[in-house]
């Protein structure tokens, strides 16, 4: 791999958050009984006329502007002709030589510094139907036929193509995370990779370091999560590197990522399968967006993740790392800010969210929207720690119970009787007991071994089942040891 440079470009598809489809008024939401959300237009029946969804144009313009693209003063739709059972019309309406947005960029803040990834184009098209593979045995390769559901056919789709500016799998993953967060903030797309509303393909090639020419690329498909994207790129770079090192050549082809076996395998060769015979879609008239429309969309752009990141650092004093993680998803950042609005100290709220809360989300593979507690409940729990009602250690089990039940911290603390013991008399009783039982440690401490104190504090915590206020125990213990000395 030495002396070789990795070159990655991404092609991303995102379903737009519209109520209706791109060219007809069928419901565009995910799911539904198969083939219950179709009409003659999206089924491609003869004699129908598609009409463009205004909202889809607005959302596409919103993203294109956020990615610093120029909005084309004149753009048109093309028919991309090919046969595949998930496309009822036998062509896909897409944009070809005159896309909506061109020439933008997205900056990534990486450990190695700022990486600017060029955006070649942002264009509008329509989604295809969903194919279900059927067979008696349930195995894809045994199936004699496939099943088609056209509910998704015609759902507005945005295609975003980057320049080959990405150099590492980590940069690729960062790009996708940032783009997803931007689309969430813009309310352009739901960005659910597992439901397929956000999808990503990658062009990967290697070339000698410093070479101006691109190497032969492979297109990698079927990466359904950030993790899959990272792993697939990592594998593909290694595969091409090994191939070149052993004197072989990379073949231009489409490769399929298989997450189970952790490898990419060839799908079909390009020169054979692609002859799309694009031509202007005669049923859709040109799009000529005037300046007042574009300025209106620009004026309505909300705060973007990068701006939010700076604000969390500057106004709330969060470290860069925290601000970066919290703004990687709009829902996460919204939850955090709501907790702060409810009175939580920012860094404390951030710690709980990045620690226990994130661990809970990962362990259960759920989104923050599915968590049963509100930001205000998190703030109230942090307040209990600040007031000394519960210790930080107890708070962890309280928080766990909150996540499981959705109950308030206060309710849980009362129910379980796990308030922190700050009553001095009670603590002194436990402390005296600990001193009596551990004369050796007491001796050690008096000889100047600070460590022995920690041991004695531990003994008191144990006697109180972790409910003692540790600072207070520390203080009282020191006092009794030295007082008696």
């Amino acid at each position, binding site marked *: 791999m030495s002396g070789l440079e990795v070159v990655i470009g991404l092609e991303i598809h995102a379903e737009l958050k*519209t*109520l*209706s489809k791109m060219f007809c*008024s*069928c*419901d*565009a939401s995910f799911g539904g*009984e*198969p*083939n*219950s*959300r*179709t*009409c*003659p237009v999206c*089924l491609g*029946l003869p004699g129908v006329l598609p*009409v*463009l*969804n*205004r*909202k*889809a*144009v607005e959302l596409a313009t919103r993203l294109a502007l956020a990615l610093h693209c120029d909005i084309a003063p004149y753009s*048109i739709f093309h028919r991309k*002709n090919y*046969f*595949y*059972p998930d496309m009822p019309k036998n062509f896909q309406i897409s944009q070809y030589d005159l896309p909506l947005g061109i020439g933008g960029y997205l900056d990534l803040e990486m450990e190695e510094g700022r990486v600017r990834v060029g955006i070649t184009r942002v264009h509008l098209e329509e989604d295809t139907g969903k*194919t*279900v*593979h*059927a067979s008696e045995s349930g195995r*894809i*390769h045994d*199936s*004699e*036929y*496939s*099943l*088609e*559901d*056209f509910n998704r056919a015609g759902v507005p789709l945005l295609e975003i193509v980057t320049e080959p500016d990405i150099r590492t799998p980590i940069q690729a993953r960062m790009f996708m995370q940032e783009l997803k967060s931007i689309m969430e903030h813009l309310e352009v797309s739901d960005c659910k990779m597992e439901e397929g509303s956000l999808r990503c393909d990658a062009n990967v090639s290697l070339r000698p370091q410093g070479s101006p020419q691109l190497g032969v690329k492979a297109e990698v498909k079927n990466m359904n999560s950030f993790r899959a994207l990272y792993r697939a790129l990592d594998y593909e770079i290694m595969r091409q590197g090994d191939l070149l090192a052993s004197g072989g050549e990379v073949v231009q082809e489409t490769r399929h990522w298989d997450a189970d076996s952790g490898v990419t395998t060839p799908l079909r060769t390009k020169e054979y399968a692609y*002859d799309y*015979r694009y031509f*202007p879609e*005669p049923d*859709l*008239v*040109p*799009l*000529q*967006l005037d300046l007042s429309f574009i300025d209106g969309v620009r004026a309505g752009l909300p705060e973007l993740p990068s701006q939010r990141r700076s604000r969390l650092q500057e106004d709330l004093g969060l470290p860069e790392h925290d601000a970066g993680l919290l703004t990687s998803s709009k829902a996460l950042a919204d939850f955090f800010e709501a907790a702060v609005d409810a009175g939580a100290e920012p860094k404390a709220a951030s710690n709980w969210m990045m620690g226990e809360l994130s661990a809970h989300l990962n362990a259960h593979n759920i989104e923050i929207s599915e968590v049963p507690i509100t930001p205000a409940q998190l703030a109230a729990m942090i307040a209990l720690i600040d007031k000394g009602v519960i210790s930080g250690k107890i708070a962890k089990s309280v928080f766990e119970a909150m996540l499981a039940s959705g109950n308030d911290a206060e309710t849980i603390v009362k129910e379980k009787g796990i308030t922190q013991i700050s009553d001095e008399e009670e603590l002194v009783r436990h402390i005296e007991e600990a001193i009596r039982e551990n004369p050796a440690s007491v001796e050690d401490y008096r000889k100047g071994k600070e460590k022995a104190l920690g041991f004695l504090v531990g003994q008191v915590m144990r006697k109180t089942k972790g409910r003692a206020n540790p600072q207070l125990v520390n203080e009282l213990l020191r006092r009794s040891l030295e007082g008696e000395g």
Partner: protein
Amino acid sequence: MIEPKDVEYVAWLARLDVSEEEKEKFTRQLGQVLEHAEKIKSLDTEDVDPTSHAIPLKNVMREDETGPCLSQEEALSGAPRTQGGYFVVPRII
């Protein structure tokens, strides 16, 4: 300038079966179409904007509102084969 193998290729792209006879005929006819296009290409179009659409309309859009769809039965009514609410199509993998 157009050969039977070009006709074969175009027919394959369009999933059309053409007989030997048709192949001959289409080669001749498509050749004439291309010849005509060549003739048009010889015109001076220096000051003519490229046209993608014949009518002077632009920005025809609809509001993002949902309307009635076909029922599943209606949607599937023209299909040669269905199963459990799906269209059955030849295996593609």
